[in-house]
């Protein structure tokens, strides 16, 4: 009886081992099989190639890689802009942003969400992959209440959540990267590999910065981020009309420092307004703005107003 039970347990354990290890570590496995002559050189290459092919789309970039890409993009943004040094406001923007992230499709990222106010009168907001979000002093000044700022942060969280930054990386970069990585398993790169990877890293950052700062994302990504902004802001409890009211200040692309930032890199405010309005119309339960939020917003931005 005891033996029987032990047998079952052993079988189960063996089965568990098989299930758990059955499909892991393809490449080492392919190499081992090939070395023992059980797999032809051609088959080994094709297995490795398949595993590269699977990784050659942006959605397969790991969280950790996204974090390192995001750090570097953020470092480049911070080489162009100065930080607005106001602890109270920075803290307010971070708590607000974090609160919205809780209701987003992607509240957890490798290094988490972090928000920073940039010392610029340009009306702009940017998000680097992984959750590094920037908003200019000029944009905050344009907001009249917490709902408006919440909708902007929700739009940026939308870009992070839907990985629009990573989607702007040219596919060839990823193919190049995974060609290098596919070769062998090393915990640290040798100088040749490191040189090659650093070159690809530079190109990857170039692709993202071009979209983020210079050209703007593809229109469809901006519309998607607006859609997510309405979803995440109202999901948190904010009146999503914060976004429509903000967009109205941008109609005609007229006022003030309009040549840069959100005006230059985004589709026209009119088109965005139309889409956002119809989305809100379709909602059954639209949260309402309440004074206590507007009051704390005014309190936090006090130092900004002339």
């Amino acid at each position, binding site marked *: *009886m005891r033996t029987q*039970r032990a047998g079952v347990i052993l079988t*189960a354990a063996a*089965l568990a081992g098989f*299930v758990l290890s*059955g*499909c*892991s*570590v393809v*490449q080492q496995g392919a190499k081992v099989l090939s070395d023992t002559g059980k797999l032809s050189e051609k088959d080994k290459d094709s297995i490795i190639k*398949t*595993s590269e092919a699977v*990784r050659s789309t942006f959605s397969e970039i*790991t*969280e*950790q*890689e996204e*974090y*390192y*890409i995001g*750090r570097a993009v*953020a*470092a*480049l943004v*911070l*080489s162009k802009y100065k930080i607005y040094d106001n602890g109270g406001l*920075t*803290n307010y923007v971070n*708590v*607000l942003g*974090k*609160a919205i992230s*809780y*209701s987003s*499709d*992607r*509240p*957890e*990222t*490798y*290094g*988490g969400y*972090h928000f*920073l106010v940039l010392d610029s009168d340009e009306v702009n907001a940017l998000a680097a992959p992984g959750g*590094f979000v920037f908003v200019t002093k000029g944009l905050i000044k344009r907001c009249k209440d917490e709902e408006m700022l919440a909708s902007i942060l929700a739009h940026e969280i939308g870009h992070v959540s839907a990985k629009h930054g990573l989607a702007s990386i040219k596919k060839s970069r990823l193919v190049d990267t995974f060609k290098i*990585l596919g070769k062998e398993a090393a915990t*640290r790169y040798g100088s040749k590999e*490191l040189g090659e*990877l*650093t070159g690809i*890293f530079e190109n990857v*950052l170039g692709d993202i910065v071009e979209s983020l700062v210079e050209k703007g994302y593809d229109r469809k990504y901006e519309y998607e981020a607006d859609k997510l902004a309405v979803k995440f802001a109202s999901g*948190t*409890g*904010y009146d999503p009309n914060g976004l429509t009211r903000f967009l109205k200040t941008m109609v005609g692309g007229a006022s003030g420092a309009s040549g840069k930032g959100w005006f230059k890199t985004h589709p026209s405010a009119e088109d965005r307004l139309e889409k956002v309005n119809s989305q809100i119309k379709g909602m059954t339960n639209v*949260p309402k703005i*309440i004074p*206590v*939020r507007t009051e*704390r917003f005014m309190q936090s931005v006090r130092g900004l107003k002339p």
Partner: protein
Amino acid sequence: MMNPDNMKEARMKRPVRWSVLAGALVVLTVLLLAETVVVKIQSTNLRKEPKFYSQTIATLTAGNSLEKLSSQDGWFQVRTSAGVVGWIHSSAVETKKFNLLAVDKSMKTQASAGEVALAAKGFNKQVEESYKAKHGEANFAAVDRMLQLKISPSDVEAFLRKGKLGEFGDDK
């Protein structure tokens, strides 16, 4: 002639076989259904309830394996290797793709597991250091300062409560 002990064993033989078989079936079912999820972010907390500002009952880091027990509104109820049961948001974990039937047939299943083996590679600290050495203009020091500002979930909870947001809204 049988001694009394042997007789007892003979009487039990049939039910014992059934129980062993049933046991094996349970083990097999559990194995096929049990889903393992792996923490894919730097660090996070295991929470008592499925919300971010709920009490922390364990700290988790990238690579920790967890047994998924159930799910609810984007949260997974999981058991840690130490046996602690709590909640983690689905965006913090990766679901391991084990498909017993696909092992031999489909290369794609194998390849997507191969990707897990590469997870720690690619762009990492070493690549960042190498990039930094060539690009003095990139302001990594400011990024590190940005990362230092930590907002606790209880601060967010107080903010939501005061602003009548989330579960503290009037309509909830």
